């Protein structure tokens, strides 16, 4: 138990912008925290709030959702729809007591490899400071199921 806490973060990203940005960060040999598991999706419009709940259900300490900047969506307006959805979903999380610091949203384009790397580093440090998401993990423990992330 004395192992230092390593946050587990799940990132849902769109393949056209943020994933390409992550790729760029990689090919540019930028170093970023290894705590993030990236799930690539066709568009931020495809990212259902259910995904975020699933990540938490599996024991994530933080969730990151990222896609193209407004106006850059490969499908022209998937990210506008996503933006509305997140606005409402955030209000819901907030009202039910899920700290918003654990669920982050961002726009990262294919050219922003540096932003991606920095963003991941900042978030990882941020979540590390907040510590494990114990209040949710208690819910998982109550189910007797293991958190398998």
């Amino acid at each position, binding site marked *: 138990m004395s192992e230092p806490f390593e946050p587990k973060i799940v990132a849902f990203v769109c393949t056209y912008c943020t994933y390409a940005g992550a790729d760029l960060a990689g090919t540019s040999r930028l170093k970023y925290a290894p705590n993030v598991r990236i799930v690539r999706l066709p568009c931020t419009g495809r990212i259902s709030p259910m995904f975020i709940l699933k990540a938490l259900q599996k024991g994530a300490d933080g969730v990151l959702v990222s896609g193209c900047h407004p106006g850059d969506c490969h499908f022209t307006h998937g990210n506008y729809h996503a933006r509305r959805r997140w606005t409402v979903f955030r209000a819901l999380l907030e009202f039910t007591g899920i700290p918003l610091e654990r669920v982050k949203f961002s726009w990262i384009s294919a050219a922003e490899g540096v932003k991606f790397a920095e963003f991941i580093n900042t978030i990882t440090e941020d979540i590390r400071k907040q510590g494990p998401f114990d209040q949710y993990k208690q819910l998982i423990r109550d189910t*007797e199921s293991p958190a*398998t992330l």
Partner: protein
Amino acid sequence: MTRILFADKLDNCLERWRSAGISVIGPVKKSNSSGYSAVTKAAEFDFNLVLPERSIKELFFPQSEPLMRYEIKKQEINTSEFKAPTSERIIFGVRPCDAAGLAIDDPLFGWDYQDEYWFQRRRETVLVTIACTKADDFCMCTSLKLTPDSEKGSDILLRPLENNSGWQVEELTDRGREAFKIIADLLQESQEKAAPTAVVEEKFDLEAALAWLKEPENFESHFWKEISMRCIGCGSCTFLCPTCHCFDIQDEGDTYSGIRRKNWDSCSFALFTMHTSGHNPRSTQSARWRQRIMHKFNYFPGKFNLNSCSGCGRCSRQCPVDMGITETLQELSKLLR
């Protein structure tokens, strides 16, 4: 002279039972909902409830019960079983209809195959029932040939005193006697009279309704459609019912590890009987309501010689659209006249 348990001794009783390793559960109202939950102080009991909103069933057949934990490695499956707890407990302040409900389900859970999750808990539990001195518009135990002070399923029957200061004690089973031996010296001999039991009017002619249900041609009667028209297909009647026992088995986890659970399920849900092919033997809400009534008052008695209903009236009391067994059986008895 009868033996009396005075209410002011209740805290001492709780203490005694606790030191004997027995936990106590009773009717409790908290965060705006009532049910049977753990009690440590007498003040936590709420004996004024006509009936707790949630039935006693959940203490024997929890709404979600872990059965098995599995871990899968390459070419190996390790499982461990969850067992029902073996600790002794007393449920103090059970309503007679709830106690009777448990007795109704015993044959079902023991029918050829014993469900140890149920019976383990049944063996470890002493039911201390308090006779009802008040009832509401939905109580219907008398229609089911039970009474507000019926002994069915109980280990101890308490009758509230007229001045509400305690209860007359009637020991019904050895298990009950055993539990009350621990507090024997806290009981007092007294002449205090018991309060009259609640008056519960008979709401329908059970025999007539049963006879109607037995007639094969009534299975497809138009009655079912009419009576169930406003049913919205939620499961609140079945989940609050002390005798409804249907369940689902669900796995939670992934390919490597997780657990298998037994969860309450309800015949009101469309998916309950849906085949993988898409065919659903009970595809309409009327068919599902018919199943519920038939199961309780025709199939169950046919198998176990018992009606699967103890007359608690929760189905009607809590129904979002004011349906319930009472109305259906009332209407049924009218059909015969």
